C-alpha cells in the first residue's frame, strides 16, 4: 500500500519536525536577542555601560545597579525559601501522615499556579504597608518585600523537585540506617537528605532561577529605584531588578533608540544567565543519575 506508506512517512517527518522545533525556538530567541541588542554595544558609550548609574534619559546605561538589584532580591529570597522549602519537602516526603500530605501537596501546587501579578497586587496593597510599619522604615516598597514574595514563588519549585529527589532515595538506605539503631530523625539528616543532595541542589537552583526571572511581582513591590546596592542595608531600601527594568521601560522607549537596544541587551544577559543556571542544574541531575546507576549495579 504505497499510499499508506506515504502517509506514515509524512507523519513521521511531521512528528520529528515538532520534536526539533525546541532547538529551533531556542536558537531563534538567541538570534533575535543578539540582533536587537548588538547595536547597543556600538551606540552606547562603553564608559556608561560599565559605569555606576542607570539613568537612560541622560544616556547612563550601566547594567550594574540592575544586576545588583536582581542579586539582592534573589539572595534575600534564597535565604527565606531555602529553609522553609527544604523543611516542607522533608516533612512531606519523610514525616507527614498521609492526610497531611494530601492537604500540603495541592496547596503548594496552588501557590505554583498563582499568577505573579496577583502576588504583586497583594504585596503592593497589603504586604508593603505591613513591612513599612513593622520595620519602621520610610517605604515598604523594598528589596525585602520583593524577596518575601519571590520566596513564595520559588518555594513550589524547590518543594516539588526536592520531594521527588527524597522519594527517589532507595528504601534500603533508610532501612539500613534504622537497623543500625539510628532514629528516624537521624536517618533523615544523615542518610536520606545527603543521598538526595544533588536533586536538592537542582531544586534550589531552578527555584532561584524562577526568582531571578520573575517580573511583575518585583516590579510592583520593590520600589523601582535603580541604585547600586552597597551593603546589607540595600535589602531594606528600594531596588530595581533587570526584569522590572525591561517591563517598566520597554513600553515607552522609541523603537531603534539606544535605550531600546540596551533593554534587549538586558534580556540577553537574563537569557544567558538562565542558560547557565539550567545547564548546571541539569548536568548535576545527570551526573547524580549516573552515579546512582553505578552504585546500584
Amino acid at each position, binding site marked *: 500500500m504505497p499510499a499508506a506508506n506515504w502517509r506514515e512517512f509524512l507523519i513521521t517527518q511531521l512528528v520529528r519536525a515538532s520534536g526539533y522545533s*525546541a532547538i529551533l525556538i531556542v536558537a531563534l530567541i538567541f538570534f533575535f536577542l543578539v540582533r536587537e541588542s548588538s547595536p547597543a554595544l556600538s551606540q552606547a558609550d562603553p564608559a556608561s555601560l560599565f559605569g555606576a548609574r542607570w539613568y537612560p534619559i541622560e544616556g547612563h546605561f550601566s547594567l550594574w545597579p540592575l544586576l545588583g538589584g536582581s542579586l539582592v532580591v534573589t539572595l534575600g529570597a534564597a535565604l527565606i525559601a531555602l529553609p522553609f522549602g527544604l523543611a*516542607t519537602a522533608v*516533612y512531606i516526603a519523610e514525616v507527614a501522615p498521609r492526610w497531611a500530605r494530601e492537604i500540603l501537596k495541592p496547596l*503548594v501546587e*496552588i501557590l505554583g499556579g498563582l499568577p505573579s501579578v496577583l502576588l504583586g497586587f497583594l504585596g503592593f496593597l497589603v504586604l508593603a504597608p505591613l513591612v513599612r510599619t513593622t520595620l519602621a522604615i520610610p517605604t515598604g516598597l523594598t528589596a525585602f518585600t520583593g524577596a518575601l514574595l519571590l520566596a513564595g514563588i520559588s518555594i513550589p519549585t524547590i518543594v516539588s523537585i526536592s520531594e521527588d529527589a527524597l522519594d527517589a532515595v532507595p528504601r534500603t538506605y533508610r532501612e539500613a540506617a534504622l537497623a543500625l539503631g539510628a532514629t528516624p530523625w537521624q536517618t533523615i539528616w544523615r542518610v536520606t537528605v545527603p543521598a538526595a543532595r544533588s536533586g536538592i541542589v537542582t531544586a534550589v537552583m531552578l527555584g532561584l532561577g524562577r526568582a531571578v526571572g520573575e517580573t511583575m511581582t518585583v516590579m510592583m513591590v520593590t520600589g523601582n529605584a535603580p541604585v547600586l546596592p552597597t551593603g546589607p542595608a540595600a535589602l531594606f531600601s528600594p531596588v530595581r531588578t533587570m526584569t522590572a527594568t*525591561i517591563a517598566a521601560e520597554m513600553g515607552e522607549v522609541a523603537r531603534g533608540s539606544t535605550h531600546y537596544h540596551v533593554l534587549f541587551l538586558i534580556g540577553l544577559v537574563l537569557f544567558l544567565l*538562565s542558560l547557565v543556571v539550567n*545547564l548546571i542544574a541539569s548536568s548535576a541531575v545527570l551526573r547524580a543519575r549516573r552515579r546512582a546507576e553505578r552504585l546500584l549495579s
Partner: protein
Amino acid sequence: MTAPNASPTPARHRRRVQRLGYAFLTLAAVATVAPIVLVVAHIVVQGAPAISLAFLTEMPRAGMRQGGVLPAILGTFWLTLGTGALAVPLGIGAATYLAEYAPESRWTRAIRVALINLAGIPSVVYGLFGLGLFVLFLQFGTSLLAGSLTLSLMTLPVIISTAEEALRAVPNSFRVVSISLGGTRWQTVRRIVLPQALPGILTGVILGLERAAGETAPILFTAASFFLPRLPQSVFDPTMALPYHLFVISTQVPEMPVRLQYGTALVLLAFVLGMNLLATLIRSRARARRTW
C-alpha cells in the same frame, strides 16, 4: 552508683531531639502553606462584594473606575485559546517524537537540553522575543496573534514534559501487541498509545494553559492594551487581559476603587484555580479508571 536523674539517658535524649525536630518540621511546613490559604481567602473575601453580573458582563467605564471587566475576561479567554491552538499540537507532536520515535542520539539529547532551557527562560524575555519576531519582524503588530504565539512558545516546555511523561507511562506491552498484529508505528501511536495517555496529556495541557492565562510579562509588549473602548475585531487587534488589567488598575490608575481591584483579582484567581481544579479532576478520574 547509678547515673543521676538530671542527665537523661542517650535513648531518652534522642527521642526528645526527634520529637523536637518533627515539631520544628511540622511548624515550618505549616508556616509555608498558611500564607497560601490566607492569600486565597483574603482575595475571595475582599473580592466577593464586587462580583455581580454587571461586573462580569459590562465594559469598563469612567477611566475604568466603574463598570465591569468583560473585555479583560474575553481577552484572557481568547489569548488562552490562541495559545492552545499552537502549543497543543506542537507540544503533543514533540512529546510523541521524544517518547515514541526519538533514538538515543546526540540530537535527541540536544532537544532535551533545549527544552530544559526553554523552561527556564524568564517570561519577560519571551516578551522581548515576541516583540522582536512577531510584532516587529513579522509585522503582526501588538495583537492577539502576536501575544498568543509568544505565550504558546512559553507554554510549550510544560506541555511537552507532561505529555511525554504520560506517553511513557503507557505499558510497553500495548505497543508490542499492536505492532505484532501488523499495526504501523503511527497506527500504534494514534490508536493505542495516544488514547491511553490522553488524560495525562490533557492535565498537562490545562496546567500549561493555566500558566499562560496568568502571565503578564510576555503580553506586555506583544498583545496587551491599557484600555480599549471596544472588543477586538480580529486577531490583529490588541486586547485587554485579566492579569494586565489587574496590574494597570492597581498601579497605574490613580484613585482606583480598591473594591474593583479585588474584584478583578478574584476573577483572575477563579479563572486560574478553575483550570487547576479541572486538571486535578481529570487526573484523579483517569487514575481511578485506569486498568493497567
